[in-house]
């Protein structure tokens, strides 16, 4: 069962021809409409006409998150704002978020790709999709929502949180497909068990879990506890949002929708393209996006590309589970967190050389973030009230920058380990 048989099963030759045609159009458009790309290409002596084959892609420069930040908020948009019908945002490396835009066509394409992804999980218009991804600037909620509507399924836009209500709606509405982060799904499963809920008696059939890394161990737990088929979905807001790649029922990696995205795997240290099957950093070029096209965007996600044909009949390559990052980004409760965001807050508080540590733990399937801050002399006050007030103000500011709750813990100087002069910024104790 496919949503778009023509595109999902097209031959590799046809697919490559389509990719080249779309890549050339994209290069042409960014060269014409985005000063950043025109300048980059010119510096490297590249003209749109230089791209004659898919192999020529590797001659083009990478685009990084830093480039997005330098062009904050709308500098990389390739269409006038009057054509942008929506924006989303995700965490930037400092206080400012990373902003992305969509034209009406982009929203349509996104919905199409989510519909494809839902069908990978066996969804039809008869399904009830409980969408527990967060709605708002985060791409998860609205992304899944529009795709499920496109498919014609019944969407329950419950958003994240309020587990008791999630479980009530799941029973009362007869939810068949659950979409959320895998850790939240496990949390729901355990809360349900505590309430004496028998998931085997519910009509749940599939879960589409993403926005954070997970493992085969978690898949087994999710499938056993919730009595459904648990599938992985991949995406990042810079590229589009969820639905860039989706696992099929074969559970052997996520098909990356190559008629819209060209994936490459590079050595993160040298930038060199690696042969198929080798592990490295995933780089994606969008070839149909109008508002916010990206050329060779460095996702920082570490994975492998599997070019082998899949038993499901889809011809698009698969990416394997994300095994890590080539930067220090953390994903906490589905939200991207950079240690440098915490640093930017401490700098605001007058710290010139802040010493801090992000300690992440997972208790009862919920991620907890604790931020240790060494108390420098100028922050120190000898009254408890003032120190507690400092703790409180730091927490509020950090929470507003990160978009998730955190606990701030003041610690003594030299508590945080320093290695070779460079401080360690993250301790991740989660077992995924």
């Amino acid at each position, binding site marked *: 069962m496919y949503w778009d048989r023509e595109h999902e099963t097209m031959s590799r030759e046809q697919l490559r021809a389509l990719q080249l045609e779309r890549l050339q159009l994209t290069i042409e458009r960014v060269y014409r409409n985005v000063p950043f790309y025109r300048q980059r290409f010119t510096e490297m002596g590249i003209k749109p006409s230089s791209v004659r084959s898919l192999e020529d892609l590797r001659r083009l420069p990478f685009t990084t998150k830093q480039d997005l930040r330098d062009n904050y908020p709308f500098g990389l948009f390739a269409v006038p704002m009057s054509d942008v019908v929506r924006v989303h945002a995700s965490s930037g490396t400092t206080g400012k978020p990373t902003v992305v835009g969509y034209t009406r066509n982009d929203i349509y394409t996104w919905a199409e790709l989510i519909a494809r992804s839902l069908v990978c999980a066996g969804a039809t218009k008869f399904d009830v999709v409980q969408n527990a991804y967060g709605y708002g600037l985060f791409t998860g909620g609205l992304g899944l929502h529009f795709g499920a509507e496109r498919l014609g399924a019944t969407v329950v836009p419950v958003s994240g949180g309020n587990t008791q209500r999630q479980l009530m709606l799941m029973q009362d509405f007869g939810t068949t497909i659950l979409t959320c982060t895998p850790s939240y799904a496990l949390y729901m499963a355990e809360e349900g068990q505590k309430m004496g809920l028998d998931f085997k008696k519910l009509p749940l059939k599939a879960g589409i879990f993403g926005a954070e890394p997970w493992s085969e161990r978690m898949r087994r737990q999710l499938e056993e506890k919730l009595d459904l088929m648990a599938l992985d979905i991949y995406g990042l807001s810079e590229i589009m949002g969820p639905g860039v790649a989706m696992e099929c029922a074969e559970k052997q990696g996520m098909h990356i929708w190559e008629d819209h995205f060209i994936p490459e795997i590079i050595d993160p240290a040298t930038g060199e393209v690696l042969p198929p099957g080798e592990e490295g950093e995933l780089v994606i070029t969008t070839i149909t996006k109008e508002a916010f096209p990206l050329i060779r965007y460095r996702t920082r996600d570490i994975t492998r590309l599997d070019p082998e044909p899949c038993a499901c009949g889809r011809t698009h390559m698969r990416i394997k589970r994300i095994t890590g990052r080539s930067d220090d980004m953390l994903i906490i409760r589905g939200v991207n967190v950079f240690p440098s965001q915490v640093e930017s807050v401490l700098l605001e508080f007058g710290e010139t050389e802040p010493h801090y540590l992000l300690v992440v733990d997972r208790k009862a399937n919920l991620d907890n973030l604790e931020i240790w801050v060494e*108390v*420098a*002399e100028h922050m*120190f*006050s*000898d*009254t*408890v*009230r003032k*120190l*507690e007030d400092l703790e409180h103000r730091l927490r509020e500011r950090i929470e507003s920058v990160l978009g998730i709750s955190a606990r701030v*813990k*003041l*610690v*003594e*100087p*030299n*508590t945080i380990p320093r290695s070779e002069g460079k401080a360690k910024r993250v301790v991740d104790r989660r077992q995924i």
Partner: protein
Amino acid sequence: MKVKQISIFLENKSGRLAQVTRVLGDNGINIRALAIADTTDFGILRLIVNDPDRAYRVLKEAGFTVSATDVIAVEVVDEPGGLAGVLAVLQEASLNIEYLYAFLQKASRAALVVFRVEQLDEAIAALQAKGIRILSGEEVYAL
């Protein structure tokens, strides 16, 4: 009329207080009075010592977060209502006490009470106007 107090930031974990006293002891510094204010996570250790400047330096060198704060030390007669009289004076002058702690002197029957208020000079003037004896730094360090 002001006494220099040394304050140290301490996490609530075992052995930290002992560490502070060891650093001071190794440097021949005597502790005259000590008080701890704490929360579930951290504590503030407040010390009156015989040589506050040197205490500040050696603790800082030992890696502690330290600050020096001016406080007032008054003598309170060791009898019922002794402290209440002092507090009433400060209250009348609308001076807010951030914290206080007391310690007994070896030689006399009077207790010493250490106060921290925002407006130190106003507090000193108000107390002196009522004839309450305020000890100088030297007197306290030499106790």
